[in-house]
């Protein structure tokens, strides 16, 4: 505790004395210390890699539970705790509690925070009342509540320093994502793609909560903060009204493109990276055009918010393949050249490797061989359809049309991967990716827009790929070649964020509730332990008092809790009720808790 107080005091003194740049320096320095876990993904590059190596491939089999902590909340627990010195900050889904635990005092609760929120926000949240975690900087903990209130709490006391409202839940906007602090700003996205929200990424002043910039995903150039001449798409300027031209009338005002995933940052380039979600509605016939810039990777200047480059992965979405998954930044050699890369595992089943300086597309390959809606991305730079996925008519819900049930589309709407973040190990140069192995039937039909009400317009059913009984895989991926290196089958979708470590061990959780440790090189399972509930949280690691710990939130729910709790079946496809996709409720029950593991002393 004392160490932290000193560190915090020093941090705030320095920040006050030298101004804005130092909050960033403080964070960068803290993130470089592997004993701490100071931001949602562990580092700005979103690698979810730790240099800690006390737990290794040869001793992880001896791992034991060191301590546990119940959050007292039943709904789906996504994200993971932050660890700073002796303090651990644990968050929960709605009502969005935050607990500050003192690790030096056997995880005694130092303070707890529970906001008062209008429960009417609950049903406005698509897919459970999840929250993906808090951020830290400048002696404050930042929480994005379900009702879109962004609150700064004093990290020592839990007292509110400032609050700001980021959106209107009455119109369907909600908060589920974790903030990221970059320099003197707190960046936060917003949810509401199933409610026709015009979504945005917003930066608030770290000290005061004052709005610094807001960049929408669709709309006029000034609202989306794109420069027609300077913002690039695949090496060319985007041109004027690049978004407006791709929507009918003013449909962009209810266009979705939500920003509820993860944000990463390259301090050298001063660029932040994130993706936008599905265009609203799910019925593609109702919104002709490419619907830019939904389903897009954005690279924006952290200070001004102006976009340096954009790339739309799924123009005119027909399947709800949100592009919000994390952008993992790595410096690697590719074709003999050192490259600054961005790797992204999209919901649409393609893994993209891009040059994060320029936005050049280097690799786009399927990371589940069952992906069938596209034959691949046009990689020919001189082609008029360069960078576009080639859509297979049979699986095009646009081509098949309204009131037609398009069957056998892989992946399902929840994607080959959803928000559950992957990890990258600079030791093996491999990406470790939790995936879904699920296909669907999708039938779009006409819907009306009512503010604050669901604006979906499709019905769908999900099931494992034909002939298969497992619904998830945990894979190792080579982003330079676009190939799967190894793949472990999982009975259910893997909805937990991975952790890679210098000990040569990779960790992830399963929906049944197992924390699993596998060999980073081979994928061989080395350890598993069944926690209190299904895991949709992300695995983290930290060191305290000379010991390495592994921590993960259990608490089944989220989108995985919708379909999988009831079990996925499609008797009409002749699959029958094979044991492989029996109901998840046979394996686990609700309940939020943190489980912390260590080697025996």
């Amino acid at each position, binding site marked *: 505790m004392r160490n932290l107080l000193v560190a915090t005091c020093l941090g705030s003194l320095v920040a006050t004395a030298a101004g804005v740049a130092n909050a960033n320096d403080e964070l960068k320095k803290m993130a470089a210390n592997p004993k701490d876990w100071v931001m949602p993904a562990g580092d700005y590059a979103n690698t979810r890699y730790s240099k800690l190596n006390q737990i290794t491939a040869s001793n992880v089999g001896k791992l034991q539970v060191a301590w546990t902590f119940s959050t007292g909340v039943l709904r789906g627990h996504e994200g993971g705790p932050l660890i700073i010195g002796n303090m651990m900050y644990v968050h929960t889904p709605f009502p969005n509690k935050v607990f500050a635990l003192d690790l030096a005092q056997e995880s005694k609760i130092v303070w707890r925070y529970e906001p008062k929120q209008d*429960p009417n926000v609950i049903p406005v949240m698509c897919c459970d009342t999840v929250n993906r975690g808090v951020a830290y900087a400048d002696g404050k903990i930042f929480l994005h509540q379900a009702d879109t209130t962004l609150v700064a709490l004093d990290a020592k006391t839990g007292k509110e320093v400032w609050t700001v409202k980021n959106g209107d839940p009455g119109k369907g906007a909600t908060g589920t994502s974790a903030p990221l602090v970059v320099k003197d700003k707190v960046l936060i996205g917003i949810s509401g793609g199933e409610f026709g929200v015009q979504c945005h990424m917003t930066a608030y002043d770290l000290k005061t909560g004052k709005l610094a910039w807001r960049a929408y995903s669709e709309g006029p150039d000034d609202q989306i903060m794109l420069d027609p001449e300077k913002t690039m798409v695949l090496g060319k300027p985007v041109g004027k009204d690049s978004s407006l031209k791709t929507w009918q009338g003013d449909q962009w005002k209810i266009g979705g493109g939500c920003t509820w995933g993860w944000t990463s940052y390259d301090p050298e380039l001063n660029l932040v990276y994130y993706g936008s979600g599905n265009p609203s509605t799910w019925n593609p016939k109702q919104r002709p055009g490419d619907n830019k810039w939904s389903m897009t990777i954005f690279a924006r200047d952290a200070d001004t918010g102006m976009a340096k480059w954009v790339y739309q992965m799924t123009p005119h979405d027909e399947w709800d393949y949100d592009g919000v998954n994390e952008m993992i930044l790595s410096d690697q050699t590719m074709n003999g050249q050192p490259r600054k890369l961005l790797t992204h595992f999209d919901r649409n089943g393609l893994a993209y490797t891009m040059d994060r300086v320029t936005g050049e597309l280097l690799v786009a390959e399927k990371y589940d061989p069952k992906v069938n809606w596209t034959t691949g991305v046009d990689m020919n730079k001189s082609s008029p359809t360069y960078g576009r996925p080639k859509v297979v008519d049979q699986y095009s819900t646009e081509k098949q049309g309204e009131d037609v049930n398009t069957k056998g589309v892989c992946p399902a709407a929840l994607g080959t991967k959803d928000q559950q973040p992957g990890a990258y190990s600079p030791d093996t140069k491999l990406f470790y990716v939790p995936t879904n192995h699920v296909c669907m039937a999708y039938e779009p039909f006409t819907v009306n827009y009512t503010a604050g009400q669901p604006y979906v317009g499709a019905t769908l059913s999900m099931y494992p790929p034909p002939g298969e009984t497992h619904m998830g895989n945990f894979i190792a991926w080579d982003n330079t070649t676009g190939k799967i290196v190894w793949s472990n089958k999982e009975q259910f979708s893997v909805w937990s964020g991975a952790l890679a470590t210098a000990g040569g061990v990779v960790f992830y959780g399963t929906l049944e509730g197992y924390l699993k440790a596998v060999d980073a090189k081979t994928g061989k399972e080395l350890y598993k332990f069944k926690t209190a509930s299904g895991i949709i949280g992300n695995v983290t690691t930290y060191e305290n008092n000379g010991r390495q710990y592994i921590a993960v939130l259990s608490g089944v729910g989220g989108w995985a809790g*919708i379909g999988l709790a009831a*079990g996925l079946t499609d008797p009409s496809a002749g699959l029958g009720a094979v044991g492989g996709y029996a109901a998840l409720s046979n394996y686990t029950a609700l309940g939020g808790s943190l489980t912390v593991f260590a080697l025996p002393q």
Partner: protein
Amino acid sequence: MRPFSFAFAVFVVVASINVSFAGDVGNPAAVKSEDGKYVDKDGNPTFKVGADGTVDWYTYSGYRRYHSECHVCHGPDGMGSTYAPALKDSLQKMDYAGFLEVVASGRKNVNASQDSVMPAFGDNTNVACYMDDLYIYLRARANDAVGRTRPGKREDKPAAYTAAENACMGKPQ
């Protein structure tokens, strides 16, 4: 919006006359058809599944609308989720009037052990124009008359239905 308000007012009146099976869904057997909509002996909407599995139009339409508007909370096929009840079970206890009231006005169960909030869908034409469709589909699920599957064969969309739907959804006639 206006067509629905009117339609709903009519529903409520009709429902209040027919609340004869509070706490019980009553006998779901269809006794007659009015323009492709089947009703039970108490005059409440109900499903009709033929010997060869052919379902009435409303059951099919309800399946479709349910999986757009309801399933993100209540789970596929009315089976429930980790945070919302299985409507195939709820409809074994809830009658037509109770169903209309909850869907139109919402319901809250917020306490120390749960925060369940059902929103009010009265203003949402995607739901409100399809109340009977949803009720009939879920009543069929509650009675195991249709399984965990998309209905295969179905009766044609009745002409009167199309006209009423277009009016309610504000589509050109």
